[in-house]
C-alpha cells in the first residue's frame, strides 16, 4: 500500500510546499509594505518640519526644527550633560514602574487572600483611584524631600491602585474548575494561589506592566516638574523657563525613544513568559 502511495505523495508534497512558500512570501511582502509606509511617514514629517522651520512657515522659537534638535542632543551627548539627566529619569521611571507593579500586585494578593480586607478597603481604593493623584505631588515633596524618593512615590501613587484593581480582577476570573482540581488533591489556599491563581494571572500582570510603563513616565516627569534639579523633566521645565524650546523638544524626543525601548522590553518579557497560551 505504501509503495503505491509514495509516487503520488511526492509531487503532492511539493505542491503543498509551493503554497506554503507563496503564503510566507505574501506575508513578508505585506509586512515590508507596512514598514515602508510607516518609515516614509516619519521621514516625511521630519522633512516637512525641517523645511517649515528653515523657511519660517512656523515659529522657530516655539517649534524649533529637527536639525537644530539633533544638534542640541549631540552637543549634550558629547559634553556628557545628557547622560546624567537621562540616567536620573530612566532610573526613577524603572524603579517607579517595577515597584508600582510589584506593590500593586502584592496588594491584590492581600485582598484576594482576605475577602474581609477587600470589602473594607474597596471604597477607599475606588475613591483614591478616581482622585487626581498628581495633585498629591507637593505633599510627597514635603514628606520625602525634593528628590528621588518623592518622585518615585508620586509615580507609585499613580500606578499602584490601578495595578491592584486589574490584577485582583484577573485573580477572581480564574476558572473555578482549575481551582477545584487543586482542591480535590487536598491543596491548601496557598497552593491554590501558587499553582493556579498566580500563573493564570501572568497575562494580566504583564499587561499592567505595559500600562505602567506609560504611567510611570507621567509620574516621573510631573514629579521632576515639581522638584527636580536634574532629569529630563527638569530639562523640559528649564527649557520652558528660559524659552529654549529646542531643549524642550529634544527632551521629549529622547523620552519617546526611551519609553518605546522600555515598552519593547516588556513585550519581549511577555513573549518569553506567555508562550503556549
Amino acid at each position: 500500500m505504501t509503495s503505491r502511495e509514495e509516487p503520488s505523495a511526492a509531487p503532492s508534497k511539493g505542491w503543498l510546499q509551493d503554497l506554503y512558500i507563496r503564503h510566507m512570501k505574501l506575508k513578508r511582502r505585506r509586512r515590508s509594505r507596512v514598514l515602508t509606509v510607516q518609515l516614509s511617514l516619519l521621514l516625511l514629517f521630519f522633512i516637512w518640519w525641517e523645511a517649515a522651520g528653515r523657511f519660517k512657515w512656523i515659529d522657530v522659537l516655539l517649534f524649533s526644527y529637527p536639525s537644530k534638535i539633533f544638534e542640541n542632543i549631540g552637543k549634550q551627548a558629547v559634553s556628557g550633560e545628557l547622560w546624567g539627566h537621562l540616567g536620573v529619569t530612566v532610573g526613577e521611571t524603572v524603579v517607579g514602574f517595577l515597584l508600582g507593579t510589584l506593590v500593586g500586585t502584592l496588594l491584590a494578593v492581600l485582598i484576594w487572600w482576605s475577602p474581609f480586607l477587600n470589602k473594607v478597603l474597596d471604597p477607599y481604593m475606588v475613591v483614591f483611584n478616581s482622585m487626581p493623584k498628581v495633585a498629591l505631588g507637593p505633599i510627597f515633596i514635603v514628606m520625602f524631600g525634593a528628590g528621588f524618593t518623592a518622585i518615585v512615590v508620586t509615580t507609585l501613587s499613580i500606578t499602584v491602585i490601578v495595578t491592584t484593581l486589574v490584577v485582583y480582577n484577573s485573580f477572581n476570573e480564574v476558572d473555578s474548575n482549575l481551582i477545584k482540581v487543586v482542591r480535590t488533591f487536598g491543596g491548601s489556599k496557598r497552593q491554590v494561589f501558587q499553582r493556579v491563581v498566580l500563573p493564570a494571572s501572568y497575562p494580566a500582570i504583564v499587561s499592567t506592566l505595559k500600562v505602567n510603563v506609560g504611567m510611570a513616565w507621567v509620574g516621573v516627569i510631573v514629579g521632576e516638574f515639581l522638584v527636580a534639579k536634574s532629569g529630563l523633566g527638569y530639562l523640559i521645565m528649564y527649557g520652558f523657563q528660559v524659552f529654549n524650546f529646542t531643549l524642550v523638544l529634544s527632551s521629549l524626543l529622547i523620552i519617546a525613544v526611551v519609553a518605546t525601548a522600555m515598552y519593547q522590553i516588556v513585550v519581549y518579557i511577555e513573549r518569553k513568559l506567555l508562550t503556549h497560551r
Partner: protein
Amino acid sequence: MVPVVELNDIAHVYVTDREASLAVEGIQLKVDPGEFISLVGPSGCGKTTILSIIAGLLAPSKGTVSLNGKSVNGPSSEVGYMLQQDYLFPWRTIMDNALIGLELTERLSPESRSVVENLLKEMGLGESESLYPSQLSGGMRQRVALVRTLATDPGLLLLDEPFSALDYQTKLQLEDLIVETLKERGKTAILVTHDLSEAIAMSDRVILLNRNPGRVHRLFDIPGNIRAAQPFYARKEPGFNELFHEIWEEMQAIGKEGSQ
C-alpha cells in the same frame, strides 16, 4: 467487608441570600471495594452535590460520610476526582500536568515520576510528555486528566460526567479505556452521568435519583453478561435494551412528578 464509601442519611442545604434550599435528602449509600456504580437522574437531582460530599469538598448539612470506615473531613488522597472537562493547566506541559497531584501531596519522587511516565505511555501519550495541552485533542486531554487522577493512586475514583465534552466516538473509546484501567487496578468508582446507556454499559449498579430534593429513587443491578462485556459491546448484549427502557421509563415518571 468495609465499604469504600458509606453515606448515612445525608442531607445538604444550599443557603443563598434569597433562600435556603434543600438539594439532597436522606441519601443512603454503600459502595463495596472494586464496585463501579453510576448515579443518574434528571438535572437538579444533586448528583454533583453527592460527589462533592464524598470528595470532602463539601461538608454535608446532615448525616455522616465515611471512606474505608473513617469519617471524612476534607479532601483526601484516597479519592481521585475527574471533572466534566480536562481542566489541564495551559501553562504546564503534559508531564507537569500529570504530576500536579503528586506535587500537591508532596509525594513527588523519581519513583513516582517514572510510574506516571509509564501511565502516560500506557494511555498512548508517551510522545506528548513535553507538549502543552493546547497542542492536544480533546480525547487526549481527557486521557491526561485520567493519568493525573490515577497518579496519586487513589482507591476511589469520582467521575463527574467526564465524557460530556467529547465527541461520540472519543467518548466510546474512553469508556472502554476507563473501565479497563479501573478494573485492572481494582479501583472503586462512582460515575455521574446524563447518559443512561453509558451508565448501564460501564457500571455494576445504577442508582436512579429523584429530584427536588434529590433522593435515591431506585437501584438497578446490572446483569452479569452486560457487566462482563466491555462498555462498547455491552450495548449489544441481550437484556441491555430492556434495562435501558425500564430505567428510561422510571426517569420519565420522575420528570412528570417534578413538573407538577
